């Protein structure tokens, strides 16, 4: 018990206020019910330390804790907006509005370098359990290799520029597979070893695929 409180205090003391997540990441509706449901504690505590990116290279804590390599946040946090102006060549400038005007679109989004060909409203069952996400979170998929509609396709080398499109996915929850058993037996040996496995998988729902208009792309390029 004692060790845990010390570790806890170290963690708390080392989080400089500047490393707190930007305000919009905190849950935007802190719900204080006046009814019997218990009082919801302040949102900042609900984001426990493991979620924040605490790279402690700057100041070493007083108690000589080994400077461990920075704890990688379980869920990637929003990257810094790209400041380099957007270089759109002529063909993209001409055909992107046509692509955006067509009724339905698909995108080949890459999660951990694995492509998922999805349209808006699809359910994606990732082949892994994504740590640190809770049902209801909204993820922005920013790596896509191709984005297209019926007649046009925008291909990225290897990925598209993330300012061209906005693809949001909602974390629906985690689902498991039925229990799989694997019997391991060697010949002339009566002992059978059965291995049970039941992996858990995260389920996403692609909420929205939006293609930004040319002005937005150029606008975001210069103004940032």
């Amino acid at each position: 018990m004692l060790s845990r409180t010390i570790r806890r205090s170290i963690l708390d003391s080392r989080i400089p206020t500047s490393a707190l997540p930007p305000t919009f990441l905190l849950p935007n509706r802190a719900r204080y019910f006046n009814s019997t449901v218990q009082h919801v504690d302040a949102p900042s505590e609900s984001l426990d330390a493991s979620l924040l990116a605490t790279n402690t290279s700057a100041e070493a804590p007083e108690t000589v804790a080994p400077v461990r390599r920075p704890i990688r946040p379980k869920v990637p946090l929003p990257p810094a907006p790209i400041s380099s102006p957007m270089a759109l060549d002529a063909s993209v400038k001409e055909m992107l509005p046509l692509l955006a005007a067509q009724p339905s679109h698909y995108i080949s989004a890459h999660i951990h370098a694995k492509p998922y060909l999805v349209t808006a409203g699809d359910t994606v069952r990732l082949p892994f359990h994504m740590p640190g996400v809770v049902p209801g979170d909204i993820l922005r998929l920013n790596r896509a290799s191709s984005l297209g509609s019926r007649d046009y396709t925008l291909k990225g080398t290897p990925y598209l520029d993330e300012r061209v499109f906005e693809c949001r996915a909602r974390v629906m929850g985690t689902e498991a597979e039925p229990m799989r058993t694997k019997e391991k037996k060697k010949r002339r040996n009566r002992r059978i070893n059965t291995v049970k496995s039941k992996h858990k998988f995260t389920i996403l729902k692609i909420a929205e695929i939006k293609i930004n208009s040319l002005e937005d792309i150029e606008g975001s390029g210069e103004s940032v």
Partner: protein
Amino acid sequence: MVVQGIRKATVGQNGVGAFILQCKRLDFHYCDWAGSSKGMNSFLRNSLTKFAALNPQVEITVSPRPRRHPVIRGTYINGREKAICVRNLTKEQVLQKAELLRDANGEKLRKVTKPVKSINESVRGVWSPYHDGGIHV
């Protein structure tokens, strides 16, 4: 006779617009006498209030079930139920099982071969033998 409209109902896409957590109710059954319910009792005493506060959309009921193993029973919006026996588990493990039930969506567990499931039509259209020539034999 001008074109007529056919009356249909739309299909829900939970998660596209609004997100509704599928688990709507969690029943915690414990027993004061049984030793297997020690972890569950400590969970109910210590961390259930925090769990309930963080998941206001789940209705939580706690009721004794004497001389039985402790069990958590989740009721889901599609009407199905999932129950997990938490006998001889510590309170952290009980919390994990409760979160497992909260994150599940009540569907029957089945083997899924392809990661993407869609109800939309194909965006680029499906090949048909009647158009642009088909097979030149």
